[in-house]
């Protein structure tokens, strides 16, 4: 009975985590319009890159950053920090991607935004120990920021790694990570 309870608890948690997260930095209402220019438009295989979608209308200050994994094999999870200028933008929320969910796999997401200007992100499959082969660019996670001041802010990966499905998972070699530039007017 005890074991069953634990399993149920775990599934509920994963499900909750998979539904996307609330932000930890509340944004003030502004009239800034945000935009995002990727460092690489089509970086090719074995890359992780970011594209951006600005909001419209009353959400013009919001920019959703789409973190893509592009053409690589045996991805079990990802670990990275995303840094940006906390005087120019703040974290709002995140939503799950789809690359690791391929095949109906359960995925756990963690996004910590306690430190302004830095997101600590972790994404991992929680079932099976099998990695996914990504044959085209697929989103890993979506991070929404709100621009809070005019100007530009570099969005950079730090401590980035895609991890494979070996035991224990190890960073995949040969991966390149591309950020971009977040701007507000």
């Amino acid at each position: 009975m005890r074991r069953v309870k634990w399993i149920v608890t775990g599934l509920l948690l994963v499900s909750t985590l998979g539904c996307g997260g609330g932000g930890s930095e509340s944004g003030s209402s502004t009239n800034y319009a945000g935009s995002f220019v990727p460092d690489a438009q089509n970086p090719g295989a074995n890359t992780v890159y970011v594209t951006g979608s600005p909001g419209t209308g009353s959400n013009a200050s919001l920019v959703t950053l789409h973190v893509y994994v592009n053409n690589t094999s045996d991805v079990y999870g990802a670990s990275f920090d995303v840094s940006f200028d906390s005087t120019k933008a703040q974290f709002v929320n995140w939503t799950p991607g789809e690359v690791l969910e391929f095949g109906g796999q359960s995925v756990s997401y963690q996004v910590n935004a306690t430190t302004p200007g830095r997101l600590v992100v972790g994404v991992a499959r929680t079932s099976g120990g099998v990695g996914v082969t990504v044959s085209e660019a697929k989103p890993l996670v979506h991070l929404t920021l709100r621009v809070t001041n005019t100007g530009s802010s570099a969005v950079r990966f730090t401590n980035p790694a895609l991890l494979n499905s070996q035991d224990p998972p190890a960073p995949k070699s040969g991966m390149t990570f591309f950020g971009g530039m977040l701007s507000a007017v």
Partner: protein
Amino acid sequence: MRLLPHGRNILALGLLLAAPASAGTVGLRWDPLAGATGYRVHYGASPGSYSSVRDVGSATSTTLTNLVNCSSYYIAVKGYSSQGESLTYSNEVTGWSRPEITSASPAAVRQGDRLTLNVNGANFQPGAALDYDIVGLPTSLAGDPLVRVENIGVVSCNQIQAQLTIEPTAAGLRAMEVGSFAVNLDVVNPDTVVGASTTQLNVQFSESRADVNESDAVTANRIDGKDLVWLAYSFGSGEGQPKHNSDADLNGDGFVDGEDLAYLATRFGGCWTGSAWSAGACP
């Protein structure tokens, strides 16, 4: 008649120290003396010098009460009848009041702790032993308590200290399971008189265990995505099963499951500052 101390026989009048109820007490019993209709217990602070006497009637056992803790008492018994009191005493027994444990601390420990357990009470003689019995451990830990009590020493007649080790937090080792269990303590004085008590230990989660891949120097002292991936890789596994990683079993229950994920999630993004885990990310 033999007067025997509790837990041992002393020949002559056959007096024993029996098991008294609490500190400040000495229990006695003795063999009957032929022809005696009653008994008087004589006791004092010096050998052969008895400043107090208690008539216990025809009983052949009694408990002396209101004795001073941590003090030696010398005790002998005489029988009496209608013809008067016996000329000689029984054998003399000596000892302290029964040891009594009133408290033990701390009540809360953490996985991997090594700390001093203080056992407080009275009448702990030099050379007293501390026996312990850990009970109520989860079934998964039966025979493998992962708790050690060692270096037991009598600090004073009111305190015994012991080194308590809650195993472990080192990489590759299974942690003590988070939860509560009882530790039965027995203080056994050199005169074999025993005092017993039970204390409760509540093992709490150690944040340092959330750094699952602590062997990775690049992300040492960070709880980040790599830790999540390592835990997730073992998710659903039990001890001894393929892909099981004891480092990912954060609560030490033998399974990597939702509870472990929850523990990691609450510490995710944290950074070791040198003395504690901060909520914010490492610089």
